[in-house]
């Protein structure tokens, strides 16, 4: 049975960065990917805007992926594609990973595992819509795969529900290919995608955005023929009398992403109900020693640059992991934060900048994030705006505060509500 220092599960941007980074530290690394090609979802994200932070260039998804795939191959890192992990067992100081592929069932052992399993789209099953169940209801990612990988336009006239970034990107993409996008309907009062995507994907093409509106009913037997739209109140409950019928052959859903953590859950790692990903420390290690997490499996990022960064940090930490039992201080996370990652900081005398990620739970103007130890402020950063769709990061060397286990560590955001 082959034994590794680090096994990375997932060959998207997080997994590629993690594997490269662990290999650079001298670790013996294997990457496992279930699809035929490395690169993850970037393979179908043919639009540009990736890599502005990491490379200072506006790359398309496949170009961004290629930078990492190319380096991955140059470093001669072991990998298995078309391979599915069917189980992980904990042994003493290592893990047994059972996979299935064309060779049958294969087992590996590894000192550490990095979960880089990405996230999944919410589907129509997770959105409550009345009516028939015709074909023509897709997630934005499925519509993207049809258009950009298979070269098949899945719609001639569609309605998009949800203003997530993939939905906005697909509104532009389908319009460029000649489809009619009747509108993007968002149940919340504010868009969930980045402002720049509202500008360049909707406004540029005169595609209307309807806030506080949702799809309430589907019509059609074989294929979707129309949807019913209603206005919703502040609690997102449809307002009677506002029904409107929009004819279309497709409904495209961009209603959110959820970290994919079946494997993490099978290992009983502690989960965070806010991020829907595992709880981790500043080394990206979960509550199970030797199990690391990165990218969108940890929390849904809005830029791939951050996904790669977390993979890189997790890869380095996993390669240097040596069974030491660590003590932690957990953050008490203020209610105006949608989430905060990492949820705990390891107590260490070694100077090392921690990378902290957060989102505010609502739009705040003249905002600030503050970190306090036992009620005393140790850090503050000001922002002209904080918006839930736009994740913020902080680099902070936590060792300088000489934390002890009994300390109370709090993080809060404050600002004027808009």
């Amino acid at each position: 049975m082959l034994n590794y220092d680090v096994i990375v599960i997932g060959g998207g941007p997080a997994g590629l960065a993690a594997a490269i980074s662990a290999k650079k530290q001298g670790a013996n690394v294997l990457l496992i990917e279930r699809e035929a090609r490395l690169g993850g979802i970037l393979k179908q994200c043919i639009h540009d805007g990736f890599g502005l932070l990491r490379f200072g260039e506006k790359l398309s998804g496949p170009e961004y992926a290629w930078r990492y795939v190319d380096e991955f191959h140059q470093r001669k890192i072991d990998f298995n594609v078309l391979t599915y992990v069917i189980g992980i067992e904990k042994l003493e100081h290592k893990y047994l990973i059972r996979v299935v592929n064309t060779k049958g069932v294969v087992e590996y052992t590894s000192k550490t595992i990095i979960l880089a399993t990405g996230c999944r789209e919410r589907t129509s099953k997770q959105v409550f819509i009345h009516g028939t169940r015709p074909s023509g209801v897709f997630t934005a990612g499925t519509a993207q795969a049809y258009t950009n990988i298979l070269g098949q336009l899945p719609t001639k006239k569609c309605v998009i529900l949800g203003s997530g970034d993939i939905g906005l990107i697909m509104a532009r993409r389908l319009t460029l290919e000649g489809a009619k996008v009747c509108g993007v309907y968002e149940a919340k009062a504010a868009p969930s995608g980045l402002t720049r995507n509202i500008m360049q994907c909707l406004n540029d093409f005169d595609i209307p955005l309807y806030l506080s509106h949702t799809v309430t009913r589907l019509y059609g037997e074989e294929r979707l023929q129309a949807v019913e739209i209603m206005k919703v109140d502040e609690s997102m409950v449809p307002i009677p009398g506002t029904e409107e019928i929009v004819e279309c052959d497709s409904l495209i859903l961009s209603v959110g992403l959820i970290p994919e953590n079946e494997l993490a859950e099978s290992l009983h790692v502690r989960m965070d109900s806010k991020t829907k990903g595992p709880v981790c420390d500043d080394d990206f290690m979960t509550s199970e020693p030797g199990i690391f997490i990165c990218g969108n499996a940890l929390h849904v990022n809005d830029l791939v640059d951050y996904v790669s960064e977390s993979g890189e940090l997790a890869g380095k930490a996993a390669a240097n992991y040596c069974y030491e039992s660590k003590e932690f201080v957990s953050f008490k996370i203020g209610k105006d934060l949608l989430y905060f990652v990492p949820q705990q900081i390891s107590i260490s005398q070694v100077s090392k900048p921690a990378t902290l990620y957060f989102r505010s739970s609502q739009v705040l103007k003249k905002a600030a994030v503050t970190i306090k130890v036992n009620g005393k402020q140790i850090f503050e950063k000001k922002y002209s705006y904080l918006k839930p769709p736009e994740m913020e990061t902080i680099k902070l060397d936590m060792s300088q505060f000489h934390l002890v286990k009994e300390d109370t560590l709090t993080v809060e955001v404050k600002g004027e509500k808009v």
Partner: protein
Amino acid sequence: MKELVCIVCPNGCPMMIEDMGTSIKVSGNRCKRGEEFAVSEMKHPMRTICSTVKTNFPKVPVLPVRVSEEIPKDKIFDVMREINKVVVTKPISIGDVIIENVLGLNVNIIATSNILKE
């Protein structure tokens, strides 16, 4: 006075633009690129476009492409028509030129994936 959100980078600065006749005054931008974007947006808005071209490889029916530089916003659909005329018949590499100097705009259409080489 015109309000505009910068689309150059993910910061998405909210900018105010004032046309002073001979010059354009920009505020709210956190960097030089924001000012350049605002001025260009007022005078001659430019955009990049990304799409796919057909191939005759059955396992890879389409290949992703993009413009090598920004093009005028009002040429987007003209350039799309040119992109949709192409059928790739050779296994080309990432960065290879697919249409040279498309519509005389001094911009190339380039491949953005190495999938035909993998």
